[in-house]
């Protein structure tokens, strides 16, 4: 499993990753539209930098902002891929959650399902597709780094094996006591994500709710989906049983002498 670790304290907000993402994925120009969320992400912008003001007392080195790079989290158990009725969004063995536009039918259930609100729609086009970060899937399967981590001048965002990066993150937290919040964001949330953060400010605002919990979202529907065959057969059996009982009773009422005979 490949992963990205972003150290929020190291980011200088230079937007180099944003620009590299655009050129690596050949994304066209982006005119502000009414339907975009105000977080910099759009169908043509797969990563963005969110500046968050620091409280004066917590700001270190006199900095007044922290820059948080927003991108697809590439969940280990992605809600979007589980929701997609045709499997257009799916997870690759490297951990990247990628999109097959040939399968997509445009139901936008993935956009509803994502707890981070990442997938964006190409609303402008009469032939629209779902767009999001694909962890530079082609590049990483060739053994290269994603474009964003490659260009980062301060190595605030780095790429590697997930296990190694989690270890690295914990080491950084340990060796800089008090600098970071003692938590690797993305290690356990919704079953773990491939895009990890360590930070000195809380990163809850990246999701729709502050405490996401560790239960993978596909499990929520899995229980209901598991009971589908049971419900199907059960309802059939119940209805047939009901029908049989009622039919028998009415037959007995009509012909009380010979109840076993069928009409």
């Amino acid at each position, binding site marked *: 499993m490949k992963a990205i670790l972003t150290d929020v304290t190291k980011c200088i907000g230079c937007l180099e990753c944003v620009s590299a993402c655009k050129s690596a994925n050949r994304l066209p120009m982006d005119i502000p539209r009414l*339907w975009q969320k*105000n977080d910099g992400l759009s169908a043509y912008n797969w990563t963005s930098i969110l500046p968050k003001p620091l409280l004066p007392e917590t700001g270190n080195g006199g900095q007044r902002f922290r820059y948080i790079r927003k991108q697809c989290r590439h969940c280990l158990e992605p809600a979007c891929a589980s929701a997609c009725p045709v499997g*257009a969004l799916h997870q690759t063995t490297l951990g990247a959650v990628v999109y097959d536009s040939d399968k997509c*039918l445009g139901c936008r259930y993935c956009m509803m399902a994502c707890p981070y609100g990442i997938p964006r*729609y190409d609303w402008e086009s009469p032939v629209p597709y779902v767009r999001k970060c694909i962890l530079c899937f082609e590049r990483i399967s060739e053994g290269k780094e994603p474009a964003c981590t490659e260009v980062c001048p301060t190595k605030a965002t780095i790429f590697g094996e997930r296990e190694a990066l989690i270890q690295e993150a914990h080491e950084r937290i340990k060796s800089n006591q008090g600098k970071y919040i003692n938590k690797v964001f993305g290690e356990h949330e919704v079953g773990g994500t491939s895009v990890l953060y360590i930070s000195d400010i809380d990163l809850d605002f990246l999701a729709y*709710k502050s405490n996401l919990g560790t239960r993978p979202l596909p499990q929520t529907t899995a229980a209901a989906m598991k009971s589908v065959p049971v419900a199907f057969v059960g309802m059939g059996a119940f209805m047939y049983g009901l029908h049989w009982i009622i039919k028998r009773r009415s037959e007995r009422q009509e012909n009380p002498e010979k109840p076993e005979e069928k009409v």
Partner: protein
Amino acid sequence: MNRVQAAKSILWVVVGFAAAVGITRMIYGLGATTNLNDATPWGLWIGFDVMAGVALAAGGFVITAIVYIMKREEFRPIVKPAVLTAFLGYIAVIISLLFDLGLPWNIWHMLIFWNPHSPLFEVGWCVMLYTTVLLLEFSPVPLEASSRYAKIRTFLLRFRFPLVMLGIMLSTLHQSSLGSLFLIMPYKSYPLWYSDILPILFFISAVALGLMMITLESLVTSHLYRRQVETELLSKLARASVWVLSIYVLTKLTEIVIAGESSLIFNGSWESILFIVEITIGVLAPIVIFSIPQFRRSQKWLWAGSVMVVFGMVFNRINVGGLTMMGITGDSYFPSWMEISISAGVVSAAVLVFFFAVERFHVWETPPRHPEAEPTSRPRFDRVSQVWLGAPSVAGRTKYSLAFLFSFAVAVAIVPGNEIQSKGAVTVPTMPARGGDTLFIDGNRDLYGVAFKHEMHISQNGQKQSCVLCHHMNIPMDKQSGCYRCHKSMYQESDAFGHQWHSSPRGGNIACVQCHEDGRERTAASAKKCDNCHRDLLPDGARIKHERNIAPSYVDAMHRLCVDCHKEKALTLEGKGDLARCARCHETVPPEYMSPGAPLLGNRPYFNRVMMPGAESLLKADD
């Protein structure tokens, strides 16, 4: 005109209007026609047409269960209309879905690409299968019309019981799975509507809604066709619905209490108001009304009760489907008039087909008198072709086709022609040239216009031949098109620079001429050098001479051009190699460089809006 004709005329008007809007939707896409956005990707078409539509069509499986499974033969007269309503309901759902799906021509993909983990996959399959089942259940009725189809008809009738069973089983699945759809959004859904037993709640409420939809459908058609209302039957349905609604409300409230969310009901938030309205009107009030026997037998109260249940349950589906998520996503979606008219059009078309079927086929025990049947029918004279056509086979086709035609044309007329082509971008306001040549165009839509020199544009673009480049007599393009339609390079070349950040409503407010030399082409070549504004680009005493100081952006300059230069220089200048590392400088960057007002990053969309000085004076100067 009798009631049916009046109703049909209105429906044709709605259908005509929706037809034009539907074509617009298919040509220009979702962004141009709906208010859907990245925060609210599901809107009216899912909440009302699909979610509520499927629930409203639940009457089909409920009534077949009552008659064929429970053998309550007295309900047989209302089976056919209820099955017809359900069938048309499902067709309407599928047609609405074709409008809602981004790639509607791929709707069949669910047949070959499977993802059995997805509740939507299951819903899709069940809807497809159940629509087929409904078609087979209903088709003996139209097949009755001719003896030619007698064999097929008896064949179908032989399979009626298995079909009914299959229909009930499929309905159980997808009525509940529509609830399962939302299980995956525990973080978006409001707790009052989110629960692990959402599928069960959806199923029970669908049964209640099915009963009341049969009632309402019967009442409406009885009113229109002046038929005898089957009050006795309907009151029995109403009594049954009391039980179902009670089970529903008890399950729901118990679940809320167990989950510890009961305090949310009365906390006065708008979600709590939605919840109270939904439960009171849709469930509690009908329970009270229908538990009183006199009220159950009164037509007036049957109307009131069934309308309340239908409203409440539709409201419930809309609440679950997204209305109550808005507090969490922070978006305020309201459907556009185009979305509303397509929804209305699809429903109207379904109702028209219903009318057609009941007039043509043996749906009711006592078929209605044909509403178009005029005893004094005369052969029709066609004024245009000047011939006699005889009595028309479908009377009223003149009237209805005219209703369709005119409302279609009106819809075409009010579809915002050019705005729709600009797709989501706000139209460009212009101020006409005041007696002179200069026109003010607010290309960035931020109340700051820039002067547009007409004469100059004509002379640069090839004199008289150039008019048509901007002005198109049919569409007032010159009022609508932004500067970027021609000046494309400013976005393409300077993407990393973020031209829109420097000039957009969300960032800075620089008028073109503040950076681009007046009178020259507006490209990167004619732009001012970055350090013209960003004076702190080069610290005092810097020895660097930027020969190529036409960098499209500061960011670019820092991270492409300058750094490259430094790298180059590092080869020749001893000990200066370190300069090529950003982190070396940024360790020592003074804090004010990172402040919101600072020119360094101050005009990014996420920061406070900083009004650029000189924008107002520029407006005046060009006057």
